[in-house]
């Protein structure tokens, strides 16, 4: 679960991290009120679950109250990578020239089977850019997941990263961030920029915070922070069915299968067949007609999808159950796009018999995944040309 900047800041504040003051607003008038209250230059920042807000014009320095209002008018309602901005965070502006900007973050790192703490004196830019251009400027340190980051480790990392400022205060902030990451089951936490003022005191100006979905059961207090309106509507519906679903950009073939590996491979196969997958959809194990029906219904709703590729492999999955699910969708008028499927499972003959009975060109079974994918790709690409 991705958190908004203001939510991530609130979490870090709960762990004692020194965070820049700010308030959320939904209208330009609310922004004006907050700016007046702060009585100093503010920054108006779009709160959306995508990166690159700054480049998109979603973060604006506002030296006056009127300017804050004007910037809020520009930002609220704007579209950033397909998401509409419906709220902003108004924070006190900081005189960046009076201090320095660093980066600290923690990510789940498969390679060390724990969190890796990252610190860099190159703050204020995307860490991926630093990693690409000057990887030596990022100090990496494995954090023991049982004990968490220790103050002495934090100090050593800060020294290696070349941080200037109050060493103990900076280390203390990193320790608190580590505590937040471990106790709140973070997948990713970033403080960037970490601003160090003239006195050497650290202040979190911006944050990213993402929580492990598997651990949400122990963070029930954060469930209300989940904003379905900020997610893709089909992703919300998929979550309801318990499907792992990812909407992919610029695709034309809906893809569904049982198991993450087989669906990933299905995406690859669609690509090889010359089309583009429009989604990733894992229906999980033991496909019954009902599940297939729901999955087909979901994918059909995606207007990008021009054809559907179903790829099922399972020792116990019955081909006729899959066929029944698809036929139900057809009969209910939900299925308007061609379904090309490969089902490795028992009861293939029964499935074929069912399909023959329906006799719709919209549903076809193929002996292997390549033929099914190629048929789907062709259908999708043809549909595109016709348009």
């Amino acid at each position, binding site marked *: 679960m991705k958190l908004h900047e203001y939510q991530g800041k609130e979490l870090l504040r709960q762990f004692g991290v020194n965070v820049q003051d700010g308030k959320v607003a939904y209208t330009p008038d609310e922004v004006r009120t907050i700016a007046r209250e702060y009585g100093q230059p503010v920054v108006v920042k779009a709160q959306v679950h995508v990166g690159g807000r700054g480049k998109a014009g979603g973060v604006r320095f506002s030296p006056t109250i009127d300017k804050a209002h004007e910037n809020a008018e520009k930002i609220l309602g704007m579209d950033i990578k397909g998401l509409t901005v419906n709220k902003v965070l108004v924070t006190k502006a900081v005189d960046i020239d009076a201090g320095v900007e660093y980066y600290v973050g923690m990510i789940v790192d498969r*390679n060390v089977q724990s969190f890796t703490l990252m610190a860099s004196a190159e703050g204020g830019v995307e860490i991926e850019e630093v990693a690409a251009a000057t990887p030596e400027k990022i100090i990496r340190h494995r954090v023991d997941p049982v004990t968490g980051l220790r103050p002495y480790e934090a100090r050593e990392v800060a020294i290696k990263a070349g941080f200037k400022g109050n060493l103990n205060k900076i280390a203390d902030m990193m320790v608190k961030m580590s505590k937040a990451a471990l106790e709140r089951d973070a997948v990713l936490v970033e403080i960037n920029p970490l601003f160090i003022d003239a006195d050497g005191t650290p202040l979190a100006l911006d944050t990213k915070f993402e929580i492990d979905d*598997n651990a949400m059961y122990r963070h029930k207090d954060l469930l209300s922070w989940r904003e379905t309106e900020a997610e893709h509507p089909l992703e919300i519906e998929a979550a309801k069915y318990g499907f792992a679903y990812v909407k*992919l950009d610029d695709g034309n073939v809906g893809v569904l299968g049982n198991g993450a590996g087989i*669906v990933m491979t299905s995406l690859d196969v669609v690509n090889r067949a010359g089309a583009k997958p429009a989604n990733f959809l894992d229906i999980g194990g033991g496909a019954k007609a009902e599940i297939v029906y729901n999955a087909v219904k979901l994918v059909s709703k995606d207007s990008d999808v021009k054809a559907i590729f179903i790829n099922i492999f*399972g020792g116990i999955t019955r081909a006729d159950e899959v066929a029944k699910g698809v036929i139900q969708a057809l009969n209910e008028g939900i299925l308007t796009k061609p379904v090309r499927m490969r089902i490795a499972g028992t009861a293939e003959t029964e499935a074929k018999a069912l399909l023959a009975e329906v006799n719709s060109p919209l549903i076809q079974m193929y002996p292997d995944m390549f033929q099914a994918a190629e048929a789907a790709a062709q259908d999708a690409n043809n549909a595109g040309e016709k348009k």
Partner: protein
Amino acid sequence: MSILVNKDTHVIVVGMTGREGANHTKAMREFGTQVVAGVTPGKGGQTHEGLPIYNSVAEAKANHPVDASIIFVPPAGAADAVLESAHAGVPLVILITEGVPTVDMMKAVQEVNRLNQESLSQGGKGVRLIGGNCPGLISSGECKIGIMPNSIYAEKGRIGLISRSGTLTYEAGKLLQLAGLGTSTTVGIGGDPVIGTTFADVLPLFEADPDTDAIVVIGEIGGADEEAAAEYIKNNMKKPVVAFISGRSAPAGKRMGHAGAIIMGNIGTPESKLAAFKDANVPVADTMPEIIELVKKVLNK
């Protein structure tokens, strides 16, 4: 022979009385696995399909030979169950459960690794964790500690298989079976970001196994386990290895079903994995069926 498990492996099922535990206990026994007991706290003293149930792994271990435990416990208790088996001295622990919080796995894996070191340094058998979010492992025709379909693994073959994905494991197993090659042992290491056993941990076992001629590695995007495997192969292995990587067309920053399958920045990209395998002289199949062609090629068949 085979690696890790065989006809003589005695297995306990932790969470045997739950739905999943019960179904797969049945399937494992049908396959021929020597399941000796179940563990369900609070149900000690009962029996399940003729098998005794104990309140703890320690109790089961006091009453039976136990070489391995397989865990079907809901996510919130899964890491604790791993540690229970590990501390009780079970040398092989297989965690099937999907959806275990990553922080729990970090803690458990670190502790299991430490117990393993301690045990080995004292001349013990060590402790190995496989999974979580994995289909388990199976030595064809001998012993299954997992949830894969029995039919694919009925007859012994000579190809070792290691995979991050469940369904692709079965798919590859089926293809190897149909090609008349078959599998010696298949190890599903799991799709989570933090797992107990990686490719590079299993490869040396296959290298040492006289009944394995070649190894198939089924990787995917995310992390750098494939790169580590390539490094190991390059430096240590004589037997041929064939690889496959799924998710090669997945975009960066999106989690592809498996919590571990995500490209973050320049970490976990297919390009990096392909380059690593190329550097290690490991041919990479572009499609699943091509795996078979490549295996035949490396075996000169």
